[in-house]
């Protein structure tokens, strides 16, 4: 149990274990093998950041490269899911959704409802999200709010290696379409991950830190940022709870509400752009459901209403950091009518 691996390795292991367990699981994406048709080695890439590396060697018939035709191959994964396979398809960067969103939100997400409950579409769409890699406006977005908005999709956004493995195994076993959002800045982070296979249920938030004065809800990479802020705040005598919803759809609102009932203060940290974001989503639901408990204005900590800038100096300002989170907490704690 005390084995430490990276987030990248945890994802790879989850896929490998599910492929070994269930031969209906197939993997496809641009260069998920890497090298198809090329004169050199196969498995030359294993995905653009090496996440699927090695799977081809173990499962050569079930790991496939694709052309750069996201509508066709994401759609094919969806079609294959209706036909009895359990595809894990990669949309390399979540930013590329715009060339294939129809297959995801009008097809996969709606089949079951449109067809009166008679479709099952167990597809997993792995995709890389988030800012921080100096990858600029078209390779750094969150876009999780867009997917979370769509009924029929589930959205998982693991914040650490343990969750990454357990949530991905659940995603592959799940009978509904799942957007599995991997934060690109977390791939090299490490943590304890059991070797055995395990699935983490969707819709169960993880209270990463207990605290009485304020409840911080944070998504993805922001969980680490919130924990950092909570440590800082402890120094000033402020006790902050940090909750990681782990899946944004379904959302474990109950856990959040319970904590807010006690703390009376909510800070939501979401690196997405602010409008119609997860921060506003969670904030508004709490303002509706736990208003009586609230003792201070809800604090929304998000990226600004701008594309993600390239320059490191700007990108670092774009992404919420621990000091912004701590400042928001202080605003809430210090607030008097």
């Amino acid at each position, binding site marked *: 149990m005390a084995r430490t691996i990276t987030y990248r390795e945890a994802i790879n292991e989850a896929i490998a274990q599910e492929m070994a367990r269930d031969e209906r699981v197939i993997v496809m994406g641009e260069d998920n093998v890497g090298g198809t048709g090329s004169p050199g080695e196969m498995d030359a890439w294993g995905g653009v950041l090496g996440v699927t590396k090695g799977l081809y060697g173990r499962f050569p018939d079930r790991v496939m490269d694709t052309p750069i035709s996201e*509508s066709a*191959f994401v759609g094919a994964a*969806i*079609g294959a899911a*209706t036909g009895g396979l359990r595809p894990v398809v990669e949309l390399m960067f979540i930013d590329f959704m715009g060339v294939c969103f129809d297959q995801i939100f*009008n097809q996969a997400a709606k*089949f079951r409802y449109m*067809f009166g409950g008679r479709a099952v579409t167990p597809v997993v769409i792995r995709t890389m999200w988030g800012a921080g890699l100096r990858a600029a406006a078209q390779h750094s977005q969150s876009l999780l709010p867009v997917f979370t908005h769509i009924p029929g999709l*589930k959205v998982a956004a693991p914040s650490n290696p343990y969750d990454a493995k357990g949530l991905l195994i659940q995603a592959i076993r799940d009978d*509904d379409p799942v957007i599995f959002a991997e934060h690109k800045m977390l791939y090299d982070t490490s943590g304890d991950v059991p070797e055995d296979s395990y699935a983490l249920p969707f819709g169960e938030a993880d209270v990463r830190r207990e605290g009485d004065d304020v409840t911080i809800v944070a998504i993805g990479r922001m969980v680490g940022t919130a924990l950092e802020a909570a440590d800082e705040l402890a120094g000033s005598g402020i006790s902050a709870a940090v909750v990681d919803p782990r899946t944004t759809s379904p959302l474990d609102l109950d856990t959040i509400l319970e904590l807010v009932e006690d703390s009376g203060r909510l800070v939501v940290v979401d690196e997405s752009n602010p409008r119609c974001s997860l921060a506003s989503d969670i904030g508004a639901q709490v303002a509706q459901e736990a208003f009586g408990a609230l003792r201070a204005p809800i604090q929304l900590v998000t990226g600004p209403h701008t594309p993600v800038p390239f320059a490191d100096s700007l990108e670092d300002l774009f992404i919420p950091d621990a000091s912004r989170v701590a400042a928001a907490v202080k605003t809430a704690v210090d607030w008097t009518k």
Partner: protein
Amino acid sequence: MTGTLSSPTAQELTPDELLEAYRTMRTIRAFEERVHDEFAGGDIPGFVHLYAGEEASATGVCSHLDDRDAIASTHRGHGHCIAKGVEVKPMMAEIYGKLTGSCHGKGGSMHIADLSKGMLGANGIVGGGPPLICGRALASQKRGDGGVGVAFFGDGASNQGTTLESLNLATIWNLPAIFVAENNGYAEATSSSWSVATDDIADRAAAFGMPGVIVDGFDFFAVHEAAGEAVARARAGGGPTLIEVKFTRYYGHFEGDQQLYRADEVAHARENLDCLKRFRARVTADGQLDAAQLDRIDADVAALIEEAVAEAKAAPKPGADDLLTDVYVSY
């Protein structure tokens, strides 16, 4: 390998098969004509696109398919449903938005589906089907069950990127897929002679490394033969085919369309080209079937449609309990 097939005799059909094909085409025609009338009467809500005139395509293609095989359809999907074996009564109920419908009234005309029959749904998105069919073909390929996937799409959809990407994908994955471009001359009011930059849609096959063929879509036998070859090739691991089927739709783009953009081509087609008339003429002239057999089918079908409408009208609507169900398997 683009060519035009004239009406073939090569592939012989048994009398039972001929009767079955005729029944399918007649069922589609009768279904669509009735829906047309019911829509005019104000009883059917939403957007309804009729397949009348195009029956030979769905029928000629699907007559080669069985339970292993899947099809994806379009907004003009009733004919594909019927040809793939979806039951007529739940279809009619679906169009009326009733709980007894194929989709419990949640889908309507544009989304009738029956996955148990390998019918992946009518589709409200032009070009929505071809990617999905690549996936069905892939699933069959991986399983090695010999199944094929068929994507029906229109001339308008042949300009949609999703369709074009799928042609390429199908070839490089060597998928058992058949792409049936149903060229009825128009996408809404826009002529395919303008919107498609080549003379024929089948010309695009070469650009994606697969055989392309053009068939007279009023001729069941022509479609049947071309589809037979394509299906056989696909089942044998020979990869995809693009079949362009040319014909005219008998009604407007959707019900309510005034059709100012076209002349009287429909009258001409109904009179001289109609797939049911031609089928009838040919099989009776050959002595393969006699007219009375066909008349009986006509009568059976008329009765079936009558019942379907009556039952659909009488059926209950979905209610408050149904609103929130069927979004997820579990949530």
